């Protein structure tokens, strides 16, 4: 009988960019029990949303997460618009979709790099992040900023994509697609990568559903579920079907994200080619009426869920934010027990955790 040791993994750990503590009990090198502990970055954003005016919430909620910030602003705007409900011009919907997919592209490139870093492939990390820089550049050119775009307002968007920008975006995306194609080929087919990821952290379809997982974590386990199927913004008019892998291990989750990267580029191309003419914003007066609603968008990490309740004034009664990692975090309870100590970072990174947005 081996002795049991409990080791705190985090909140500050070289492989974790996020403040989460995992109290892991080991038996020799094997994990037998794990308790996730969060609470190192709680900022009270939900409370602040009640104290702010509704149109100031956009800039606050964008800062919930540094990587999926675009989807946060889109969700808070969709939630507020649905309280009336407002009729949004079609061009706005397409523009929002384009930026959302652009944000997904840069987020997945970031994650593929971080994941490669988690099993020690540091040069791959730098290669992916170099490509990501190009995506951030086109975000800055079209939306005004690299990471915190601040382009959504209640009733529309503030920037338009003109013909010259459209051409730049398409050219850049073609380069991004070509370069990441080579790198993803390495990640998918290299035997070293396979030996670290195939069969590690297996989560079955039933387990993933029971734990309420979302996004690529869920789709890696063979469940075809995606908030984009609810056809918010312009997804109803695009040719979209979720990407699903059935194995449920770290390799499958990586493959889902790698394929989604190319799908996101395709969706941007399609949306750019179908971009209708017209207004980009409508005027909004007064506060949202007393009503309650739910806005669901697909952030790079999974389904983002905003519940909003208005009370007829310019201040909201309640705003509830459920971030994707909040739903994915219970998955560590079944992913980690039974795995080796060296596989813990790979398992955790395969969920794409974003702890600071979990705590809001």
């Amino acid at each position, binding site marked *: 009988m081996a002795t049991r040791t409990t080791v705190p993994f985090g909140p500050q750990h070289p492989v974790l960019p996020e403040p989460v503590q995992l109290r892991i009990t080991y038996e020799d090198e094997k994990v037998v029990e794990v308790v996730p502990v969060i609470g190192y970055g709680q900022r009270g954003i939900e409370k602040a949303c009640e104290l702010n005016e509704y149109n100031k919430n956009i800039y606050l909620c964008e800062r919930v997460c540094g990587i999926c910030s675009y989807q946060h602003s889109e969700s808070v705007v969709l939630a507020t618009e649905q309280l009336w409900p407002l009729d949004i011009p079609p061009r706005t919907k397409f523009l929002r979709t384009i930026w959302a997919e652009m944000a997904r592209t840069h987020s997945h490139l970031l994650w593929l790099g971080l994941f490669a870093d988690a099993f020690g492939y540091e040069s791959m990390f730098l290669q992916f992040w170099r490509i990501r820089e190009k995506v951030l550049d086109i975000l800055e050119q079209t939306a005004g900023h690299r990471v915190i775009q601040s382009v959504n307002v209640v009733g529309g968007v503030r920037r338009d994509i003109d013909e010259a920008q459209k051409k730049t975006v398409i050219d850049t995306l073609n380069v991004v697609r070509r370069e990441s194609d080579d790198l993803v080929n390495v990640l998918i087919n290299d035997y070293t990568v396979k030996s670290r990821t195939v069969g590690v952290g297996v989560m079955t379809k039933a387990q993933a559903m029971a734990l*309420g997982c979302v996004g690529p974590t869920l789709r890696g386990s063979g469940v075809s579920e995606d908030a984009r199927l609810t056809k918010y913004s312009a997804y109803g008019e695009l040719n979209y079907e979720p990407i699903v892998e059935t194995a449920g291990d770290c390799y499958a989750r990586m493959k889902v994200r790698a394929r989604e990267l190319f799908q996101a580029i395709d969706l941007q191309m399609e949306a750019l080619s179908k971009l209708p003419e017209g207004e980009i914003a409508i005027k909004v007066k007064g506060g949202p009426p007393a009503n309650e609603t739910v806005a669901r968008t697909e952030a790079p990490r999974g389904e983002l869920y905003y519940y909003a309740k208005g009370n007829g004034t310019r201040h909201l009664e309640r705003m509830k934010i459920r971030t994707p990692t*909040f739903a994915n975090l219970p998955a560590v309870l079944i992913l980690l027990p039974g795995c080796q100590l060296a596989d813990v970072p790979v398992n955790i990174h395969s969920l794409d955790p974003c702890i600071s947005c979990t705590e809001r």
Partner: protein
Amino acid sequence: MENIIQITKNDIVNEGKKLLDAGAKFVTAVCNDLDEKLEVTYFFSANRGVDLTCLRYTVGKDEEVPSLTGTTLSTLLIENEMKELFGLKVKDLAIDYGGHLMLAHDSPTTPMLKPKKAEAESKGEI
């Protein structure tokens, strides 16, 4: 918001289990402060995540409510969070963080509760 089913607090475990067995997935729970009472809404999604069903009950602020963590671990974090931020008395949690999931030892207690209307009015008069 459509599909809101009003239930009592004791039915939540049975009704939730029924939905989960029918293939639904737990999404999240929302707690609202209604001045005198707390309103708790559990959201479940079905049909590839497109359809949303809500189970809603209203309880007094000092009443104990049952936990769904016995049925599914997915409600673990949110029930702990509601317990901390709203003071909702959830009993039989699978992992009880003891009020320190989000908050620290010297944090304010139940920060999400609104100031009571009666108190706010009396302060306004002064």
